[in-house]
């Protein structure tokens, strides 16, 4: 039976979820919800859900305390419940941190944006079964006999039977003493999807632009992770040349070169060719830039790469263009001109943080 409090608790969680959904746009654009790497949950700061009452205001921050000090000295920081007998009352401004799992978050995002679920490409959803030794049992092949456990059983039996002589500590296990390792089969999801992020780190991409990319990539990650059992992420940065980097480096690098987008696309194509066979992998590529490419020739090279290699290989290729004060923003126009309504290429312009939600929707609404 579910206890009563569990029901009340579930009810409360539903309310919390409702609040997150209502304010999702704000949370998304503020980047509050970015999870730490490797963590399954995010904490979301949320104004305390409280019942409004006629209560006193903050009383200009007055209260009574006890202890040493002269007038003007600071009082200990945790004054939250300073007033006599006030514990539990009158606290209202505080925010509570609500923990939400990434799965739940993806679900909320999906509901709010109306995202369709993804039909994985390639028939084989790879799932391998891995055996792991977890315990003991009384039967099994001799090769898996657990000597220590068997010995212990035998010792225990002999002591209780009174046949154990400490001076001649001879232990003879019988059939019933034998213990064997037992195992459990654990299905282990095989990674069969990969996200390749590419970002322009040339001089014209400022911190604000990168923050946008960071937030957006977090949400894309969260959503795609909820759709695939295992997923890999790769990161490529480029200015005039491109290289593959770690996640941390991806978000913190700032270079000052010119911009040759084709370098990143070439790198990406190489990466796919080397490691991710498109017939087995669901490949998602996202490229973020301020759209200020070096030359018309390079843009032509990009279009050729996209058409011949990247788009055929990937489920979807996303191009997000952030606005920077230096960039001309020409690249997105060139792409649209070249590809028209090619379904596999999705472009989106992200002018400010407020556009992130819409951009995410653009990228993910295809359900590919």
């Amino acid at each position, binding site marked *: 039976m579910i*206890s*009563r*409090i569990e*029901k*009340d*608790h*579930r*009810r*409360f*969680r*539903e*309310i919390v979820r409702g609040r997150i959904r209502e304010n999702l746009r704000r949370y998304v654009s503020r980047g509050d919800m970015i999870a730490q790497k490797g963590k399954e949950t995010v904490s979301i700061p949320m104004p305390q*859900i409280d*019942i*409004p*009452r*006629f*209560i*006193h*205001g*903050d*009383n*200009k*921050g*007055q*209260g*009574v*305390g*006890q*202890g*040493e*000090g*002269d*007038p*003007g*000295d*600071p*009082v*200990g*920081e*945790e*004054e939250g*419940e*300073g*007033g*006599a*007998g*006030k*514990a539990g*009352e*009158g606290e*209202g401004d505080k925010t*509570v941190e609500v923990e939400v799992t990434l799965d739940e978050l993806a679900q909320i995002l999906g509901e709010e944006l109306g995202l369709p679920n993804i039909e994985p490409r390639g028939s084989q959803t790879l799932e391998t079964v891995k055996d792991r030794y977890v315990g003991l049992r009384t039967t099994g092949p001799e090769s898996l006999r657990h000597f220590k456990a068997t010995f212990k059983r035998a010792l225990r039996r002999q002591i209780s039977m009174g046949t154990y002589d400490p001076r001649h500590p001879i232990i003879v296990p019988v059939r019933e003493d034998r213990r064997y390792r037992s195992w459990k089969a654990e299905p282990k999801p095989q990674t069969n999807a990969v996200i390749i992020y590419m970002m322009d780190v040339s001089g014209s991409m400022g911190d604000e632009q990168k923050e946008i990319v960071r937030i957006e990539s977090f949400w894309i990650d969260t959503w795609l992770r909820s759709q695939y059992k295992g997923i890999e992420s790769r990161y490529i940065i480029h200015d005039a040349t491109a290289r593959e980097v770690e996640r941390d480096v991806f978000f913190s690098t700032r270079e000052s070169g010119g911009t040759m987008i084709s370098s990143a696309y070439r790198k990406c194509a190489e990466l796919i060719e080397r490691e991710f066979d498109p017939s087995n992998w669901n490949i998602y590529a996202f490229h973020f830039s301020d759209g200020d490419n070096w030359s018309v020739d390079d843009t032509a090279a990009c279009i050729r790469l996209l058409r011949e290699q990247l788009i055929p290989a990937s489920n979807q290729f996303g191009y997000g263009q952030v606005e920077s004060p230096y960039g001309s923003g020409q690249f997105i126009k060139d792409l649209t001109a070249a590809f028209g309504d090619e379904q596999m290429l999705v472009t989106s312009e992200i002018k400010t943080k407020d556009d992130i939600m819409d951009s995410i929707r653009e990228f993910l609404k295809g359900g590919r």
Partner: protein
Amino acid sequence: MATLTKHLADLQAEIEGYATEYGLDFFTTIYELVDYRQMSEIAAYEGFPVRYPHWRFGMEYDRMIKSQTYGLSKIYELVINTDPCYAYLLEGNSLVDQKLVMSHVYGHCDFFKHNRFFSHTDRRMIDGMANHATRVRRHMDRQGIDKVESFIDVCHSLDNLIDPWLPFRKPQQQRREPSVEMPINIGRLSANADSERSYLDDYINPPEFIEQQRKRAEQEREQRRKIPPQPERDLLGFLLLHAPLDPWEADVLGIIREEAYYFLPQRQTKIMNEGWATYWHSKLMTTRALRDDELIDYAEAASGVTAMGPNQLNPYKLGVELYRDIEDRWNKGKFGKQWDECDDRQVRDDWDLRLNLGKSKIFEVRRLYNDVTFIDEFFTLEFCRRNRFFTFVENRRSGRHEIESREFKKIKDTMLQQLTNFGQPFIYVVDANHLNRGELLLAHRHEGVDLRLNYARDTLRNLVRIWRRPVSILTTVEDKPKRIRFDGTEIQITDEPAAWRVP
């Protein structure tokens, strides 16, 4: 839940013996052994095994489980005011802790039984709460969960608007005015029936004065016709009588009101109650129950109870120190006219009349006082100095709280202000037919602290949901009299000519 194990049951009998020996008198006390999840559940339900379904309890539970899991806090003791008294012990606590908790619990039980502010509470509230739960569930089955739940939200938002003195007053008769109005008659003084002195009449009964009296009588009659005849503080009771409620809504509102009145004394006597229990656990443990080898563990647990965060007040500590101070003063005869008038520091310090009235005094105090009167009477200059009290204030610039002063009067005033009316603002129902338009008028008796405005607005919205007509409240915002009105669509804040006073 499990009944006590053998050795805990023995322990209970032992401690109960010590408590009785010291003159504590309590209802039969029943202990339940619970694990920390159950403890959190019960604590979320404010000590009761069953409450009506509401997410607020779930939120409390969430908070408690989290702070337990992260080791931020631990619920040591939980006891409820019923007959028999139920108390909960946390499974897995050390034996010393269990002893400490039991000793502490007997202090509470004694307090529940004897403090007069608890004298009107329903001692069979366990059944009461369970019945409330059943009724609310039944309404939910009929009306739908969301509907009932959101109505409960509305009721909660008003549940501090009750009259602490109501349980002590005789129920007022709901008397209507006699249907035939009696003519207003202003008594005239007649110096003498003697008609010869009638020339004095204008002096004895000045016409202006008579006119004034007539006006006042008329006003009073006018006021009597109003609902309520006098400003009233029991808003929940008032709504129950006069608001247009569906039967199920009235039932739910009644339940919330009943529970609010049940919990009221606990909020009025927090310092006293915790202080009393702390006093007794320390007494019972240190003089009787403690074994030598348990001393360190006990000292650690006990210091945790009375520990103070960085410079903040702890009701346990404040309470127990006040009781000890009272005991000491009455033992030495440090009270009365002579004591008050003595201003020789040396004489005061050495004062000892060997009266030994301390014990009977603290028992009397626990019977007759609540937090406000307790602090008002026994928080003395000496006590304040000795325990290094101060007031603090927020420094707007740095956002830090800084010590403001060590002036006795200011400290005591601040403290009393926070305790008066269990820390809640005074709100009155003034008129149920305001402007003859069926609007509800409330008033806030401003005692120096403004209302929290964003909450006040939301509360007004909730009130309109019940009253179904516009609702206004008179209050003072930053020293300016204001009226906040919600008419169902928008909040208006307007200036008022003068601040509202209780007539």
